[in-house]
């Protein structure tokens, strides 16, 4: 399997004041292959989200190396890094983070329209298709105050997909949703992954992690264990088994 993302000895620290330094990530090594669906679990403050933001280039690392699609992202200038994010990465956040003064469809189309000489009609058709896929086609012209949390999160997924990224990063994408909406979002992400897009999620939710292929477990800024669950096939029996298996594994790791 080709490597999509590789992190070596990634260290991230922040200075709290002159004397105190907080080590958020400690020499993390990580490799994610193309087409993988990986989740990261761990207690609060373990560094899960920081790992996601550093390997995606949103946050700078203190030391170590991160390669994405064979490019060392630590050495990229801001503009090149932005271009990389725009063209090859998609992000889904717990807080949704849509732009306030754009409608849902404009939020979705916006990253695609930044490309010069783009076929606007094609972008619009694509956004419509994505909205249909995620079940929010009727809300296209609504403002973000006229949609529910689940609907907004779907719009966030559509925006992440509009430029057909190689990898999607999700920071607790179901964290603020009810269990039904969360399950629907995971179904969509699984479908995207099945089409070849690599996905990396941070989550607290066992049900969410159980649907991913591999689960990383972090404590105090280190990945201390990982569990290969294998590809998930939609069925309630398998899900319960996977959850149980995951639970047992987590407990042995001190969860």
């Amino acid at each position: 399997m080709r490597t999509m993302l590789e992190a070596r000895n990634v260290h991230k620290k922040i200075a709290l004041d002159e004397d105190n330094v907080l080590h958020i990530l400690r020499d993390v090594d990580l490799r994610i292959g193309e087409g993988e669906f990986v989740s990261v679990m761990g207690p609060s403050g373990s560094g899960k989200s920081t790992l996601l933001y550093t390997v995606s280039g949103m946050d700078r690392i203190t030391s170590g190396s991160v390669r994405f699609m064979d490019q060392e992202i630590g050495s990229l200038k801001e503009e090149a890094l932005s271009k990389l994010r725009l063209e090859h990465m998609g992000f889904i956040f717990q807080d949704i983070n849509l732009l306030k003064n754009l409608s849902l469809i404009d939020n979705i189309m916006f990253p695609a329209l930044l490309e010069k000489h783009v076929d606007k009609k094609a972008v619009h058709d694509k956004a419509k298709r994505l909205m249909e896929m995620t079940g929010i086609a009727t809300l296209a012209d609504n403002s973000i105050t006229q949609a529910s949390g689940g609907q907004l999160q779907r719009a966030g997924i559509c925006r992440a997909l509009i430029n057909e990224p190689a990898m999607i990063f999700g920071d607790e994408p179901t964290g603020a949703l009810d269990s039904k909406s969360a399950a629907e979002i995971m179904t969509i992400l699984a479908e995207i992954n099945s089409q070849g897009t690599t996905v990396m999620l941070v989550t607290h939710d066992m049900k969410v992690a159980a649907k991913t292929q591999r689960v990383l477990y972090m404590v105090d800024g280190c990945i201390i264990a990982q569990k290969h669950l294998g590809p998930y096939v939609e069925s309630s029996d398998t899900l319960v088994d996977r959850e149980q298996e995951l639970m047992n594994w987590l407990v042995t790791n001190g969860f």
Partner: protein
Amino acid sequence: MFLKIVMNDVRRKKIITATVLVFIAMAVVLGSSATNIIANLMQSIAQLKTHAVPSDLTQMHIGSYDQGAVDALVAALGEHIAEQETMYLLNIEGSDIHFGANRTMVDTVQDISFVVQNQKFDFILDLDNRKLDIQAGEVAVPIYFMKTYGLSLGDVLRIESRGFRKEFVISEYARDFEMNSALASSKRFVINQADYDEMLEHQVGEMEYLIEFKLHEHGDLRTVRNAYREAGLPSNGPTIEGRLFSLFNALSDAAVVMVIVLISLLLVVVASLCIRLTFLATIDEDLREIGVMKAMGISKKDIRNVYLTKYKVVATIAGVLGYALSFLVVRAFNGNMRLYLSSDLSGSLQYVLSLFAPVAIYLIVVLYCRSVLGRIDGISATEALRSDIMQRGKHRKYRFPLLKNRFLDTSIYMGLRDVATRIKLYRLLFFIFIVCTFIAILPLNVFNTMNSPKFSTYMGIGQCDVRIDLRKTDTITADFERLLAELENDSDIEKHAAYITCSYPAMTADGRWDYILIETGDFSVFPLQYLEGTAPAEAGEISLSFAQASADGLDKKVGDTVVVQVGGVEKQLKVSGIYQDITNGGKTAKAGASLGLQHDAILWYMVNLDIALHADVSAKMAHYQSTYASAQVNGIKEYARQTMGNIIRQMGAIVIGGLAIAIVVMVLITALFLKMLLSKDMSQIAIMRSIGLSAKQIEHQYLAGTMAVLLPGIILGILAADYLGEILVSMAMSSMGAASIRFVGIAWQTWLVYPLLIIVVVGITLSLSCKIAVAEDLSVVLRS
């Protein structure tokens, strides 16, 4: 506790708080300076008047003179006249006064006379407001001439006339209440009695009399003036009332003060807009804090106190700073006043009056804050914690979808739609750009208008190349006729017209007779632009100056009848039109030659002429100047420039000052606005960066938005300065006699150089201040 919250808030928003402070301070500086200058002006005119004791009525006269007849009048009008004194002026040609390396005063439009200090009143003073006492061989030179010719104490003036030659050392500046101003057309040089007698003996110069009257406190000016006329006493020259001197003295400084007051008012508006801008830009954040405070159970009153205290502290510091700084500004502006009116401007009045501005501005700031905070009172804790006050309760139709953009880069389009969707925020910036452009362009318009040849319109003169004034002498009638004959036959003269001004008794609105100046001649040769109606074309018509037609003068409209006595015969004249004139106190009139002359009251002769294109203008002027001894030949532009010289010079300083203020304000506001906008939009910017927009693309959005506000702001500012400015300036000038000023704009300055300068300066400010911070981790903002 509250103070601690306030201090923390200030510390957190250092730049924003500092900029608001700077604005309030600037408003105070200008407000205080304006009041201070007004206070100084009033005080120094009053002081100068006390020391100089100017006359209440002055009759100028050239020709034979009988002091006995005047004394008889004084005796008869003892209840009105307190004192009378006649000053004997020796009028010297500018060309006869030599100084420096072969220079003379030939180019001045002022009449120059050498005098001896008066004994009773109308004293000419030194710079310490003491009566001048000049020793033999010395001369005190009017301030106007010291400045015009760059003379210094110790320099030598040499009179050379008709073989007579005498040198004087300049020992003093002459501060002359009556004739200080460039608007007064004569200037008095003070010499010693012995030197004066020597010059008189050698028949140097020409004798002119200033027959001066000082009235009792309740003496009636009109009674004295009319009695003087009716007694047929000497009157070959203008009659000047005392209040005109004060007006002249005040005018040059008043014009400056008016512009400063206007700029200050506009800056107070800008400062208020800034405070509003600050509130709007930071209110989301404050709202959350207010929500937290409300949720904690802190009362509305206490919450209001936290925010009000902050602005009270800022306004107080700014007020004190601005008040102190205003004295430096005043020092810079007062140079003129210190020289012409009073060297000692240390009275306490200015300190008290200038306190008005900081107090007024403090109140404006506090009242404004109260009204904004009043709105916050109505919001519940949960609302405050959850909502965005800008969006509250509004569900507008979605406008400007991205697909509507056909031509623009998406970042630029996003910037423009941001302006459209947050118009409330951007319109403040828009107003500020309009106001600043207005502040920059208005003085330029006034300056260009005053410098334009068309300005003669406001001096009651039709546009011509040259004017020749003939002074009243014994040979004047002969000179005048000879001049007209020569002009008639001179092929270099394209056209010319002669005008004679006499003093005529006219019936006032209250049925009394009062003397008015009427200029007679053919007014079709050099047409003057009329405010209303037309020039007098037929017999029986008269046109009045704006001031003469106003309630303060004859109180007439076009079509009304004016009754005038000509040679003792009453004539009914119909008012054909009203024109603008700021000369002779603004009160003049014009009538056709058919009116007839008032031979015993001819004041002056004037000829206007245009010189043919092929002819050498200066050679022609020199020819007529040398041929006619009693003539004064001036280029019309030079005439206006010298008469209005002081005001134009000061206006020039204001053009620079206005531009500097406008640019400083625009730079500060633009930087502040962007700083606030970027801090307000921090989370939205982080979202855009997270989805792959580069810092540069985001910067372009904000640049496009601000530019979209700047460009129409400049255009509207220029239009406002052109049209609204004309109305304002006309209102201000109407007291001088010009009620309808039409700006003479120089298009390449107004529409090209200034806008370009503003765009470049604001553009540089934008590119320096619109910087998206990329060093910080994105997640810090996204997850906060």
